[in-house]
């Protein structure tokens, strides 16, 4: 195989790995948007908290120097629980009181919560980066002509795939998932079916926030430096991924995330890492200009 193809394959693997993490975070944005028409800017900080929950959890549970599957699963579940609780808290305290207020109020509140968590994080955790604990060993599992498949990449693929399949079953196949779709279609009519919209909204935050924790753990493993502002840029890119796929559209978030991850990796690999972040914003501007409903989104249409 030629050098170029090998290099391209390596970028492809990295890009899909990064992209599937964007997708996990993008799903949280898109689910909350679908049900509340609110861009939950605090989602990027929920993600950040997921990383710190893992960092402290590893210490509290004495799992610092014990990488392995059980350490990984335990800390993953712990981070998911912490983030789910935080998501529910944010919804209760910040968004629910504004449920019937103009949408702009909730949006501004979301930005406020996001900033609040960033600064609180800097006070509580300290502003300087911390080293994320080693959850599993990053070994090269296989190598083909210099393209290596590492255990981190396998973990990232495996875990994101697992959660995406689980989410899709939840949304399509379960009663609460159908209720989520009903509430996002029409909250008033859903309440006429006996659906308690507030409970469904709470559940949506639980799921979206838990997925953010999964993203945080995977990112922490791959790029093991965490700090209280780590959510800002990463969250923004995941948000762009959600918009790219069509905000409110779940498969769209996955497609958008993968495109973002792949393109970013290719830009870094073939052009220059200087343009890594500029790229995301160029995409955002381009979509908003040419296809505001996103790739898979439909222009809002209601049948009367």
């Amino acid at each position: 195989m030629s050098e170029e193809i090998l290099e391209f394959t390596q970028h492809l693997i990295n890009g899909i790995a990064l992209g599937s993490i964007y997708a996990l975070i993008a799903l949280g944005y898109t689910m909350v948007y679908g049900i509340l028409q609110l861009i939950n800017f605090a989602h990027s900080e929920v993600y950040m908290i997921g990383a710190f929950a893992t960092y402290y959890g590893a210490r509290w549970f004495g799992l610092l120097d014990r990488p392995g599957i059980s350490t990984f699963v335990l800390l993953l579940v712990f981070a998911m629980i912490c983030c789910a609780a935080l998501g529910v808290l944010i919804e209760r305290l910040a968004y629910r009181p504004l449920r019937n207020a103009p949408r702009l109020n909730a949006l501004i509140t979301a930005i406020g919560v996001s900033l609040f968590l960033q600064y609180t994080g800097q006070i509580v955790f300290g502003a300087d980066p911390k080293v994320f604990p080693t959850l599993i060993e990053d070994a090269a599992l296989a190598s083909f002509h210099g393209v290596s498949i590492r255990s981190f990449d396998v973990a990232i693929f495996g875990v994101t795939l697992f959660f995406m399949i689980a989410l899709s079953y939840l949304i399509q196949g379960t009663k609460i998932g159908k209720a989520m779709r009903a509430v996002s279609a029409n909250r008033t009519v859903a309440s006429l079916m006996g659906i308690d919209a507030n409970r469904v909204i709470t559940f949506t935050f639980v799921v979206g926030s838990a997925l953010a924790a999964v993203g945080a753990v995977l990112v922490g493993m791959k790029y093991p430096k965490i700090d209280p502002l780590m959510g800002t840029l990463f969250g923004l890119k995941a948000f762009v991924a959600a918009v790219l796929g069509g905000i409110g559209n779940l498969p769209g978030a996955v497609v958008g995330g993968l495109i973002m991850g792949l393109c970013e990796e290719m830009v870094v690999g073939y052009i220059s890492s200087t343009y890594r972040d500029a790229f995301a914003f160029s995409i955002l501007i381009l979509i908003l200009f040419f296809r505001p409903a996103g790739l898979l989104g439909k222009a809002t249409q209601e049948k009367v």
Partner: protein
Amino acid sequence: MPEKAPILEVQDLNVHYGGIHAIKGLSFDVREGEIVSLIGANGAGKTSTLRAISGIIPYTGTIKLLGRPLTGLQPHEIVKLGVAHSPEGRGVFPNLTVLENLEMGAYIRRDREGIRRDLEHCFELFPRLKERISQKAGTLSGGEQQMLAISRALMTKPSLLMLDEPSLGLAPLVVAQIFEIIKKVNKEGMTILLVEQNARMALEISHRAYVVETGKITLSGAGSTLLHDRRVIESYLGA
């Protein structure tokens, strides 16, 4: 004939939208086994009345279901007490399939066997829905969406079925079909509160009816009586 027990009692209902006094002291009742209609022109306050009963909008006055006041209850709690509301404009969930829409109607129920039976019953009433069972509700025709909305309301297994303008935007043939079914459902024992602009159709199938004008009841009586009332004929039945 002994009076049947009242299922729904509305007393001195008032609804305000900001500065607009939309419902001004409405009182009426619906008794077991009846079809009762509220008829009236555009903006008379028919939809607002149903929305108040369902707890969607705030109101003053008393609304009782089977003698129990509904004041202060949330819409999802009122459904559990036995009020089904098929809303104006049908309000099917377009992103859900026909079957999923019906499952949402049964959201509050746990009796699997009963749900399955009621589902079959809906498909007997509206065979068209069975043909479309796994189609997204947003792709149905207007008439089919209305059939789905009524079926979905029936799936809650209510003591009172409220229908808001089932004839809205439908061809006369489809309207006739749907009204046949409403009559049939009532014959099977369902108590129905029907809101209609199509006064003739409504009065023909109603035991009793109330005429609502700008938030007040101006006339009431048996459906067959109102059908021949000079004032009703002039204002609502045309020619």
